[in-house]
């Protein structure tokens, strides 16, 4: 079992032990594990000092599908 799976398993055990104190729909909650690896942190994804006192984050380019007025 890798580290992510181990943590998820710990969370599930904790939920089972505390079920009576948690919301009724706890079984439908989703848990996604992701590693914040050093390589990922080092990537220059954020550029500080961008215009208007803001920061720029790298992201997927905007996809614009064909659109027109829709009369239904």
């Amino acid at each position, binding site marked *: 079992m890798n580290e992510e799976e181990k943590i998820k398993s710990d969370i599930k055990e904790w939920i089972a032990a505390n079920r009576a104190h948690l919301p009724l729909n706890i079984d*439908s909650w989703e848990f996604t594990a992701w*590693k914040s690896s050093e390589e990922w942190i080092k990537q220059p994804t954020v550029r500080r000092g961008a215009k208007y*006192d*803001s920061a720029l984050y790298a992201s997927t380019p905007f996809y614009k599908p064909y659109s027109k007025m829709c009369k239904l």
Partner: protein
Amino acid sequence: MIFIQSDLNDTSTNDVLDWCYYLSPGAEVKRFNDEIPVRKISIKIDRKNQLDSIDLASANDSVSSSDLSGHWYRRGETTFNKSFIKAAGKQPSEITHSFSDYIYSETNYVLSYLGEFFAHHKTGINKANDNLTNKISNLIKAKQQGLSVPATLITNCSNEVISFLQANKKVITKAIADSNFKISFTGINITVCQLPVLVDIDTYTGYQQRGAYQTSLPSLYQEYIDKKYELRIFYLKGKFYPMAIFSQASEKTKTDFRNYDRERPNRCVPYKLPDAIEQKLDAFMSTIDMNCGSIDMIYTPDGDYVFLEVNPVGQFQWLSKNCNYDIERTIAKHLTGEA
């Protein structure tokens, strides 16, 4: 001077600012980002005249209501310096907890007024307090304005859920207010998410068979409404910018379009709401005292418009760009006084 409260990485604020500088070259704009610890604050209430004022200063900048010509609350929050409470942590916990509880309640009282003041000042768009809008109360207020809403149950008793499932063909469960949070471990993060999922009756009858199951905390259950398409409507001071999202063509986005299908994105088109629905939504927004927000609705195969919720600080750029609404320019026009 235009005062904007936002997030460091909010690109929609940059686009609105592009338009502000184009429409009003030389405009003085003050942008506060993220959580702003207040260094100096003075609220003055005049005895007789309409000269009430607020002076606010953070570590980097200051804002005075006397110079204010426009205000937009986009995101972020204003706080007081909390380091004092952290330092008090060295003291016995009884002292720390009692002091911090009292100080937080007093400061939050002042901060809630800050939001009110700026929102009602001339060209204010949204206010920090809009974040506290109650989605349960909003369903009831929308219904009072004549809008259809889904049957909803908030409970911590499994027998109530079973009765609700028997009364409605399909039921979903979803977050009551916020849909996700993050748990951070060293090197690993866990995102905990509550997107809408269809409820399986066997789970709850299983609880029931083990005795009437009841937990401490409630969950939300809602009638699943069949959709012809979903509507995302940006509302700004009485004007509507609706977009239809054809989410039913993809199994992935059928229950909630936020389960994005990245390979085959949903088709999104500009849309015109019926006048009667616009009037009801406008009355609803007035009732909850929110002058800007993103409204989620469903259009059913039977031709009914069903209100789901309103988000005061939602994303609007995907809607603006998909439908060529140029919302950023309209917001800038309000801020520069050209609207």
